[in-house]
């Protein structure tokens, strides 16, 4: 393929050698790509917009192990993500989710769009934590892990009056199918909110108003869901939780 041009969001950046930077990108045309930006830390470098959480138009050269950034033109900086601690921590979590849920060079334009919409929601929206719940649902679905929410994932019957969320069963389960461990009880209202979020457009997410209890249930259910599919608890969650711990709202 050699040289190619695509839009990309920087998920992660690491210093490499004296002046280079190693990047994990999520690109529109190629999906997740690892690339090196040579000389980017040298004063006067013409490569800009290669900081995490930036959307840029890139020209890349495909290498055997690493691609190489030839040109970059920043498009959107999502500035609040760099200047508000809570939003920044949320963006770190979003980037970790995308990196963890995707394979290299497995493009999904829908996932790319969700990522960009997600960065915008986290940057400007009134409720970054609710936005994260939406993103956990949507990104895992786009990565092939869509939870069953409309009926019991185990018996196929009604979720019933006392539903629970069980990642290992594939989603919501009725009271009769609830496993002994690893399930989160859901109030019926929380299940309705989960169904709403699963189908919502990004712009509609924040019409949802949740009680602290519903927030906590939803967070436990969805963090459990992504942890189950990542096969580990996302690392960014500790910092995010520490930040929101004394916040008035329910946390992650």
């Amino acid at each position, binding site marked *: 393929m050699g040289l190619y041009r695509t839009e990309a969001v920087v998920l992660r950046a690491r210093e490499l050698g004296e002046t280079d930077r190693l990047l994990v990108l999520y690109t529109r045309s190629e999906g997740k790509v690892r690339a090196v930006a040579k000389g980017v830390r040298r004063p*006067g470098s013409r490569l*800009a917009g290669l900081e995490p959480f930036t959307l840029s138009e890139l020209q890349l050269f495909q290498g055997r192990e690493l691609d190489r950034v030839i040109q970059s033109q920043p498009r959107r900086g999502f500035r609040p993500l760099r200047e508000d601690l809570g939003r920044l921590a949320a963006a770190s979590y979003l980037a970790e989710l995308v990196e963890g849920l995707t394979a290299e060079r497995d493009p999904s334009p829908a996932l790319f769009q969700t990522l960009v919409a997600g960065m915008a929601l986290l940057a400007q929206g009134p409720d970054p934590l609710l936005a994260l719940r939406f993103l956990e649902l949507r990104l895992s679905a786009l990565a092939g892990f869509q939870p069953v929410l409309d009926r019991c994932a185990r018996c196929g019957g009604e979720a019933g009056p006392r539903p629970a969320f069980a990642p290992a069963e594939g989603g919501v389960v009725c009271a009769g199918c609830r496993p002994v461990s690893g399930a989160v009880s859901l109030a019926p209202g929380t299940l309705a909110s989960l169904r709403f979020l699963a189908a919502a457009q990004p712009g509609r997410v924040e019409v949802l108003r949740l009680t602290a209890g519903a927030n906590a249930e939803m967070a436990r259910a969805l963090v459990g869901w992504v942890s189950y599919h990542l096969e580990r608890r996302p*690392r960014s969650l500790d910092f995010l939780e520490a930040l929101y711990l004394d916040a008035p709202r329910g946390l992650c």
Partner: protein
Amino acid sequence: MSSPYALPIARLIDELCKLPGVGPKTGQRLAFHLLHRRPEDARSLAQAILDATEQIGTCSVCQNLTDTDPCAICRDSARDGSVICVVEEPRDLAAMERTGEYRGRYHVLQGAISPMDGVGPEELRIRELLSRVQGGGVREVILATNTDVEGETTAMYLARVLKPFQVSVTRIARGLPVGGDLDYADQVTLARALEGRREV
């Protein structure tokens, strides 16, 4: 696979290869370079490594690497103890010192917050900073962490936890790098450079 070299050479190459950025080729080259030097050169190098690793510890005040505790900067009564400049690493302190402009004291965090890597505030020397500030006599804390995401995260976090104290918290100005072209700067950098403008 047995090494083609005599045991002492193989062992030397082995040890050198444990250094960062040293692969087998470089390890061999360094080993033969050392073997061609005078024996006293080799002894002097070995002694320097031993001295540094055995005599260098952490300053109990500023957490910088030092051979005395407190370190020379913390003991220097000519320096202004009411100003603390917070940096990520000892090499950042060294860079600050090279400017020759700063006469206050330092605090070395020994890293930066990186949520994605699981490096949180507890992994850094933040508690030590807070107890210094709590101890009184500090007027200003200058946040001189890097301008990358980890450095910004750390600075914002410190600003938050320092808020309850009667101390002014400042951030070093971030702007365009010297030699940076305006049209290639990203929006965040440019916006900050504009905010940080000064009268000329």
